[in-house]
């Protein structure tokens, strides 16, 4: 991978992060009017308002405020929450230990379900198994994850009482904490797995018709061997693409699912902050989530180039 290519990509990443921070600042700080008044409500006393304005630096120009906010972000200082009176970075850290494991578990679940299922369907193309798998994925894509979550709660928590219906005991509780994440992770993984199974299937079907697979068959490999040794790896490239694109859906899904299960993660933090009019928290958490998505897309880009050297020449 050429250094120049990597440098260009790195510059693109920095520009994207910069642009995102400007957009978030303009939409959430400049346009809505007086953030101090939004936070305190119209019935607030003038001196309280003035005090909050001074604390938030609203008496200074927008440029200065943006520079301070963005500069703070770079140093890991995300501002201070008005309702919790603690640094936002601390809140984000506390919540990440729930959101990150949740996202990772569901990502693993997605891959564990989708790759074998997609490969299985492709290997038995047009069989009953294939048709059944395609039908199930069609249904999986159509089910909203938060509704699926509610149905899981109805079955596993309310009817059978196997798993908790919501809440999170904290990682100190050990296995109970892991149990609390099972249903949310399954709910998040379902639509992702359904999409990825379809991608895996069609991608594998395409590679199976390539010349090198035919050559492999001609030299005596069985269909299954050719699939395992030659087609599978190549079929993963489009899967990786879609996985990268799906990542923003995974993050959005986490935000919604955390609210279904009352999990104290970043998503729940955003909504608590919205209800409490704590704009500093909302703005910074939105920035964290967007930065996360942009960075993952960047990593996927690099990963492509590693897997497929043909792509390095482009842009």
């Amino acid at each position, binding site marked *: 991978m050429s250094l120049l290519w990597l440098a260009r990509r790195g510059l693109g990443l920095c520009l994207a992060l910069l642009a995102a921070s400007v957009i978030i600042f303009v*939409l959430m700080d400049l346009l809505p009017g007086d953030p101090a008044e939004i936070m305190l409500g119209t019935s607030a006393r003038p001196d309280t308002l003035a005090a909050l304005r001074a604390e938030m630096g609203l008496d200074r120009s927008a440029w200065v405020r943006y520079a301070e906010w963005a500069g703070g972000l770079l140093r890991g200082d995300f501002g201070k929450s008005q309702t919790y009176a603690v640094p936002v970075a601390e809140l984000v850290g506390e919540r990440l230990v729930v959101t990150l494991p949740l996202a990772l578990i569901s990502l693993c679940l997605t891959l564990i379900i989708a790759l074998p299922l997609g490969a299985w369907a492709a290997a038995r193309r047009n069989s009953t198994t294939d048709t059944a798998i395609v039908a199930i994925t069609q249904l999986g894509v159509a089910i*909203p994850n938060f*509704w699926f979550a509610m149905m899981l709660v109805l079955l596993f928590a309310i009817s059978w009482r196997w798993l908790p219906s919501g809440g999170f005991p904290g990682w100190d509780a050990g296995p109970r904490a892991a149990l609390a994440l099972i249903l949310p992770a399954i709910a998040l993984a379902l639509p992702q797995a359904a999409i990825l199974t379809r991608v895996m299937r069609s991608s594998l079907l*395409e590679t199976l018709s390539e010349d090198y697979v035919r050559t492999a068959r001609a030299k005596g490999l069985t269909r299954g061997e050719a699939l395992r040794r030659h087609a599978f790896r190549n079929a993963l490239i489009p899967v990786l693409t879609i996985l990268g694109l799906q990542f*923003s859906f995974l*993050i959005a899904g986490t935000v919604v699912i955390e*609210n279904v299960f009352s999990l104290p993660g970043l998503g729940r933090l955003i909504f608590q902050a919205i209800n409490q009019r704590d704009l500093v928290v909302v703005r910074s958490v939105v920035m964290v989530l967007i930065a996360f998505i942009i960075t993952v*897309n960047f990593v996927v880009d690099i990963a492509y180039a590693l897997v497929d050297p043909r792509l390095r020449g482009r842009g």
Partner: protein
Amino acid sequence: MTAHSFSVSRLFHHRSFALGSAMTACVILVALMAMIGTPQDPTAMDIAQKMQGPSEAHWLGTDRYGRDVLSMAMAGATVSLAVSFAAVAFGIAFGVPLGLFAAMRGGALDEAAMRISDFIFAFPALITAIMLREIFGPGALNAMLAIGIFNVPVFARVTYGAALSMQTRDFVVAARLSGKGETRIAVDHILPNILPLLIVQATIQLSLGILAEAALSYIGLGVQPPAPSWGRMLNDAQTLMAVAPRLALVPGLCIVFTVLGLNLLGDGLRDLLDPRLKRRRG
């Protein structure tokens, strides 16, 4: 120009197209009917009749405020489709010209336009809805804009890719030689030829829009009470799941039915409109 031979019987022999269009037609019909009127006022509360099971007066029962669940579900279809259609229109209105422009111009502008569209793609509708909430307040408009903005890069990319592959086709080269301007070529020759792809993408984005609208209304960023919506109904139903799972089942199944129908329709259209893709998909 497109050389697909079309016949109605061929259309309806395609299983997913037939099933998908029938399901979608059902939902659209219900949504239109609900605009004229629902069996009962979907916002009318009647506490005396609360939490009733299905009966002759209330086919799908009533919720905790005694509202008629059937009427709410019907009115929800109207809201859901309206938001989703508007968001797709928004995506097409901005995305298609952007993609066409990038494909026709080429060079640095092309690169910049597509980078911007990649960038917008990093903003899921949910995050956009959170950001726009401070300006527009929560509501159907907020949901429509958030989903619509997400649709822009999707349509830009599809248009760009398809339009780029048309650049070397004989009829485009001929049009260029005959002295037609780039805009004329784009509108007269490229657009009609990529229309099938755009229609398929519109169907997919419609179904994604339904899902996104439901999620946004569920968490309180979309349609606001008392306006009925499937997402709101699910939010209301959540605390009552142990007592009345029916309240969660009805709107959920409405969403699944609608999205499934649109997806099947999209799959069918893709096979029928673009034989090239069909062969590739096996």
